[in-house]
């Protein structure tokens, strides 16, 4: 067990894994560091300082594997915050959940439904994609009163997952998916899809896409002068920076920075103070909550790998749910947060805001 504990007196080390060289990873690193700084400013945990050990996994599975091995082999590391997205998380979990001293991992935003219950050392503070698709369908059908939807999806697990979930819920609500068209990052033009959708007639465009694909679609829509309402999953997050292009696009998200919760308001304010001109996104907010959740676990169960994992497993099921800036965290037996609601925000003025603010 010694190997699984930080040295007494020294700082308690938490690994942080993500693509820090990319914008989405940088957001995660900033928020996590803010959480650690705040905790240490209040005296640390169990009279010991918390220390982040950030290692860049480039968002790639192979790198994530190596990073996971590095964390696993370091006895000072008692838990990991990360990885950011689903595939690196899946790779990392092959290391964390094995061997004699398994290491718990709390992902801020790995939303692939396949991760649910993948092993006992996986937890995430965000809803899975399976929660985004239905939420988008309900929004399209009920809020936008759309009946005919066209879907452009990135032809991978994520895009297909969102497409499938949307399709089912939208059909259930009486809508029709006129067409669902795949793209890959190499796809140069989505114009044929858009042209055909115009022919077929759609009243909402669903972008189960990542930001580049979504930007391509939006640009071509502008070119074709198509004015359909556009909704997308949280993979679009960041697109608000595109200004006018993204104006009015609805995005489903586990977290909105202007969430009217005093904890969140304080967090957004602190974040802006720490990183002037910056607003946290759902990844940063998730990382912030993950760090604080781990701090609570360490303070209550001790700085042992297994103790932390066992404590996390009880959060919301025996122990009190964790009230974070992203909402209430209460794990199910798969390490998921089924109680967490996906919210639909709208991009307005370069920011993702709640629909009501528009």
């Amino acid at each position, binding site marked *: 067990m010694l190997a699984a504990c930080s040295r007494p007196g020294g700082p308690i080390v938490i690994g942080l894994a993500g693509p820090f060289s990319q914008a989405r990873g940088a957001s995660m690193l900033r928020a996590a560091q803010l959480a650690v700084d705040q905790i240490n400013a209040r005296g640390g945990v169990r009279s010991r300082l918390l220390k982040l050990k950030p290692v860049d996994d480039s968002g790639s*599975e192979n790198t994530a594997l190596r990073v996971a091995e590095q964390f696993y082999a370091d006895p000072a590391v008692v838990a990991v915050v990360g990885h950011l997205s689903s595939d690196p998380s899946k790779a990392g979990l092959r290391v964390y959940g094995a061997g004699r001293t398994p290491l718990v991992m709390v992902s801020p935003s790995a939303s692939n439904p396949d991760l649910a219950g993948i092993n006992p050392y996986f937890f995430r503070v965000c809803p899975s994609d399976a929660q985004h698709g239905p939420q988008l369908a309900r929004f399209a059908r009920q809020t936008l009163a759309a009946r005919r939807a066209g879907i452009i999806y990135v*032809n*991978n697990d994520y895009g297909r997952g969102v497409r499938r979930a949307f399709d089912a819920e939208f059909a259930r609500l009486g809508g029709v998916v006129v067409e669902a068209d*795949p*793209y*890959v990052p190499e796809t140069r033009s989505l114009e*044929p899809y858009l*042209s055909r959708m115009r022919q077929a007639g759609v009243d909402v465009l669903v972008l189960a896409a990542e930001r580049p694909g979504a930007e391509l679609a939006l640009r071509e829509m502008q070119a074709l002068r198509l004015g359909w309402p556009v909704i997308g999953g949280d993979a679009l997050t960041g697109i608000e920076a595109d200004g006018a292009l993204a104006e009015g696009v609805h995005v489903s998200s586990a977290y909105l920075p202007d969430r009217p919760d005093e904890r969140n308001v304080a967090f957004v304010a602190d974040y802006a103070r720490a990183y002037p001109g910056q607003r946290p996104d759902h990844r940063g907010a998730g990382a912030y909550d993950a760090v604080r959740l781990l701090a609570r676990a360490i303070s209550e169960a001790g700085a042992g790998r297994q103790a932390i994992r066992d404590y996390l497993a009880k959060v919301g099921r025996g122990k009190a749910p964790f009230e974070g800036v992203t909402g209430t965290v209460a794990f199910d037996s798969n390490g998921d947060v089924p109680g967490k609601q996906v919210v639909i925000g709208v991009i307005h003025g370069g920011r993702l805001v709640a629909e009501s603010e528009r």
Partner: protein
Amino acid sequence: MPRMFDTIRSRIVAGLIPLAIGLVGTALLAAVTLRQMRHAVGDELAGLRASSEIGSGLVATVFEEIRAAEQYLAAPGADSRRLFQAAGDDAFQYERRLEALGITGEDRIAVGRLKQLNAAIQVDYAIAHALKDLGRDGEALTQSAAVRPRAAEVTRLVRDLASRQAVKAAQVADRLAAASREREKELWLLLGGIAVVGLFLARWAMLSIHGPLSRLVTAAERFGSGDLRPVTVGEMPREFRVLADAMQRMADRLRRIVGEVVGESDRIAGSAGDLSATSEQLAASSSEVSTAMVEIAGSADHQRAALGTMGTGLEELRLAATEMAEAADRTARLGEEIRMVADRHRGDVGAAGKALLDVREVVQTTSRQISELAQLSAAIDDFVDLIKRISSQTNLLALNAAIEAARAGEHGRGFAVVAEEVRQLADESARAAEEVTRTTTLIREHMEEVTATMTAGQAKVRGIESIAEGAARGLTEIVAAIEQVEHASLRVRVAAQANRQTAERLKQQVEQVAGRATAHASSAEQVTAATQQQGASTQQMAAAAAHMLEAAEKLRGLVQGLRV
């Protein structure tokens, strides 16, 4: 040897348990190995089957997808579009399954590339279809043409994947073979080890049985050959120890019995020897008794003869006493005559000058007769001496007889009484003889007095002239002297009478003694006969003792074969 292994059973069990454990372990190891191999082979086969199935499925699906897509391009329709969608979804599922196989390294890259290619193929066709739907067939063709190299790459990748899987399978098979060889080696080693341990344990058990057993057999053979001395059989299993203890106890008991038999036979031999010696002694002493009896009989004869001689002596004594009495009577008569003569001649003294001469003569005669009497009394002395001697001899004889009687013990008791009687008789005889001696001495003194008186008378007669008056007085004195003589002779007669009576009584007693001696002699002869008979019995007894001795010797010879 630890206490827990002190029985053959426990040793065999102790030997069998590790063997059984070893064999069970080997069997388990073999079973586990087989199971592992089966699982490994099964897993590998399943993996291989799955990968080949997925691979071929993927290729088939991709081609199905392409076929449907091309079909749609040729003649757009809902069916072919749906087929294309479904094939695309299937291909996507295959890709997921391919990922789920847990592939690594090169395969992972290949699968990633496959996914990209398939996604791209789908997208190309989707766009081509859109273009086709929009009536832009030329663009659609161009778009779909881009699919072909991708499809070829998919095929190549799947083929490579399959061949890598095959290589991997071959490697795994090699690894499994190596592992199985390793396991086989281990199993052989283990079996060899078990065999060695088994041999060792068997040898141990055999030794622990055989050693003590041969020691027991040796001990038993020793006992069998009659050597019953205690043996040290040493350390041995409990069962054998029980046997050995039983043998030891048996040997102890036998040893004790043999010891007792030897002791008894020794004692019997001793007793027989003693008996033999005793019977010899007895024979010797019976012959001694016989001899003594013969001697006693002889002595009794002698005694009888001596008693006869004594009787004769006593008869002679009695006769002498009678003669002495007669002489005393005669003396008395002579004294009477003298007195009468003296009386007659006392008146005639004066006148009897001549008569004095007669007197002188008479006195001389008397003197002579007195001398004769003295001589007679000397004979009495001699006789008394004889009696004294006889009584002394009798006394001696009686003493001897008493001694012999004492030696004869019970048988001689009666004889001892007789001997005592004889001795008392002899004493009495001696006393009577003493009395006779005293009496004769007195007589002799008186006779000497008479002689002296007569000598004086003679002198007076010779001096008669001077003593004429004194003659009467002298005669009176003579008469007085005669009276004294008469008194003396009366006393002599009485004494002689008593002496005779004593002699007669003595004779009677001697005769009695002689009779008893005769009876004693006959008793002695009887004793001798009995003793001789006893001697014969003793001979028999000695013979029996010899037999017994012989038996005891034989017995001892028998048990002497046994060493204890």
